[in-house]
């Protein structure tokens, strides 16, 4: 029996889900065994894997969040493309069965799929229906545009709500997805899909307008900043914040913990922007196969991926976690089962994604993305605290981000 290591970052309920996937696979056949290990948050497990790789001890399969994609792609000697792994093992691997926005994200310019989309999410809009009712808003009608969000927030505030609106992953929701949603570039060269010499483009008037808007809301107490990354996730299910932009994967926690009626809806947009709404970008993570392993072990990985891509497994995962179905078949299966009808709002994410993407909305693929996100976090915090204007902060984010991009370009030119 061949045993392979799988490092992941799925804690809690999602951790159980990961273990179940592995157990199901291990039970389904006798030749291979997948051993999942929780390695901390996304950046911690990536750090650990890099250190391990340098020491010649990398796991076979590594879960990497979407911002690490460019780093992984650039490290050609460190990874083996999933398409190759599948082909070598003799599995039929047809990228077309995957949802375009998802597969496209992980595909090289030459059309080769590099990693296996495992848990893809996208930002969606959550709101608290009970709070809406109390504020005299129509609980059945989610605010669809940013001006509506601001209005709703004002009413919520007037009704005594301390935190009308907040967001997690501010760069992901308010700049990255925001750009794709409005069909504008986040970075040049098609957001990095077109080459390493990409540069940030988030200081356009539209971006500045949006951030200014949020800054105003923040000043009036309509938008309350609750921290970086997914730290604010707790504030919605607890009822503290009434409106929320966050990962579709938060669904599992909301459905379990929220003691109030809630609704899900598409991300707000500016109605005066032509082409909006387009589609949102994905988040979550994909599975990468690390280089330097035995052929037998690659076979095992291929078998596991093959297992994961079956429509039944996919559909089940989608329903269980709120992550996107990555194959069209899985979506259709779920639809047929009546899941979306029973759980209104669960289709929002899929609907946001299943659209034809444009060059501007396919996704974001930037090197040093972790640091760029931190730069953006830092600059945004300056805006929310009133230390900087939106324009100034975004300009500075562009300058600082571009330095990181340049460095990445240099380090990976070979």
């Amino acid at each position, binding site marked *: 029996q061949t045993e392979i290591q799988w490092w992941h970052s799925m804690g809690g309920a999602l951790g159980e889900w990961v273990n179940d996937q592995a157990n199901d696979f291990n039970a389904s056949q006798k030749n291979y065994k997948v051993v999942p290990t929780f390695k901390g948050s996304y950046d911690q497990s990536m750090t650990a894997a890099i*250190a391990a790789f340098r020491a010649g001890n990398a796991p076979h399969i590594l879960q990497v969040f979407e911002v690490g994609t460019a780093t992984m792609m650039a490290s050609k000697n460190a990874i083996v493309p999933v398409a190759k792994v599948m082909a070598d093992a003799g599995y039929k691997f047809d990228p077309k069965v995957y949802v375009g926005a998802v597969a496209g994200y992980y595909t090289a310019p030459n059309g080769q799929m590099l990693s296996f989309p495992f848990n893809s999410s996208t930002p969606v809009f959550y709101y608290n229906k009970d709070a809406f009712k109390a504020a005299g808003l129509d609980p059945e009608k989610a605010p669809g545009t940013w001006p509506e969000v601001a209005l709703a927030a004002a009413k919520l505030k007037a009704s005594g709500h301390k935190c009308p609106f907040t967001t997690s992953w501010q760069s992901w929701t308010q700049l990255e997805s925001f750009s794709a949603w409005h069909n504008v570039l986040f970075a040049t060269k098609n957001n990095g899909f077109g080459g390493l010499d990409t540069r940030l483009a988030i200081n356009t008037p539209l971006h500045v307008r949006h951030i200014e808007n949020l800054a105003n809301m923040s000043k009036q107490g309509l938008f309350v900043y609750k921290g970086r990354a997914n730290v604010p996730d707790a504030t919605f299910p607890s009822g503290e914040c009434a409106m929320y932009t966050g990962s579709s994967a938060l669904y599992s926690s909301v459905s379990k913990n929220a003691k109030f009626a809630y609704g899900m809806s598409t991300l707000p947009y500016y109605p005066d922007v032509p082409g909006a709404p387009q589609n949102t970008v994905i988040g979550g993570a994909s599975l990468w196969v690390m280089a330097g392993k035995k052929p037998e072990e690659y076979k095992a990985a291929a078998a596991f991926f093959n297992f994961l891509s079956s429509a039944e497994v996919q559909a089940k995962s989608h329903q269980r976690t709120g992550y996107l179905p990555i194959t069209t078949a899985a979506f259709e299966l779920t639809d047929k089962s009546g899941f979306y009808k029973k759980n209104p709002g669960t289709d929002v994410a899929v609907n946001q994604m299943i659209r034809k993407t444009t060059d501007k909305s396919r996704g974001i693929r930037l090197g040093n993305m972790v640091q760029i996100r931190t730069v953006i976090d830092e600059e945004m915090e300056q805006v929310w605290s009133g230390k900087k204007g939106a324009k100034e902060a975004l300009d500075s984010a562009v300058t600082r981000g571009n330095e990181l991009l340049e460095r990445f370009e240099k380090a990976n030119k070979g």
Partner: protein
Amino acid sequence: MVERRPWLNLLSHAVLLLGVAVVAFPVYLTFVAASHTTEAIVQAPMPLLPGGHFWDSIVKALTGQISGPGSKAPVAQMMQVSLISALIIAIAKIAISLLSAFAIVYFRFPFKMFFFWAIFVTLMLPVEVRISPTYKVVSDLGMLNSYAGLTIPLIASATATFLFRQFFLTVPDELVEAARIDGAGPMRFFKDVLVPLSSTSIAALFVIQFIYGWNQYLWPLLVTTDEKMYPIVLGIQRMISGGDAANEWNLVMATALLAMLPPALVVIGMQKWFVKGLVDSEK
């Protein structure tokens, strides 16, 4: 008493009690949080008096019935890992440091000063600033996921050697002379006289090193990939990876209490020797 001012004594007690209160408050709150349900805690403001779920939380934490985000490794097992590594670090470090300090103080040999400085340079540099190359060494030696990997690199510093050296220098020369006249060779002197005499220093170092080992965070994060080798401090960090309220704060806090308990017991139980050994040898 040099003067008669009762109010000064009162003031002293007042200041000290205030100090104790401030110092104790975070831990009191930890205890209170562990004794409530998560729901009660996230209701701001959380209650300031203990509730009735303390043992519940402790038992749950110990047995790993944690359903929030984060690790599921049972706390009892993590505590065992912490305990074993802390003990290895403390004991091994004391052992090798005693030997090397003995060599440095009681022998004359070529390049002695060079070695002294070589050891001394390692005095204060923690593993953090050379962490990735160290990781590579550990991995090359195949020590990942082992107690050896978890502990030996943390032993590589001179604090203890230095402390013992300072202590040995205060041991009267006459004792060595008496031992020589009694016919004791170097190792016999070391074993029969020096080590027993160092017992306070050893106790102080044991406390310091035990706590140092128990409290490691970054290093275990790196060298352990097997959840069975996670120490408890790592476990707590894992448990709050998900943000404010989604965490089962009662269990996090119960775990935090469990995490502080053994080192606190060590410190308090050994405080007399600890303080003495520490203060005497830093002089």
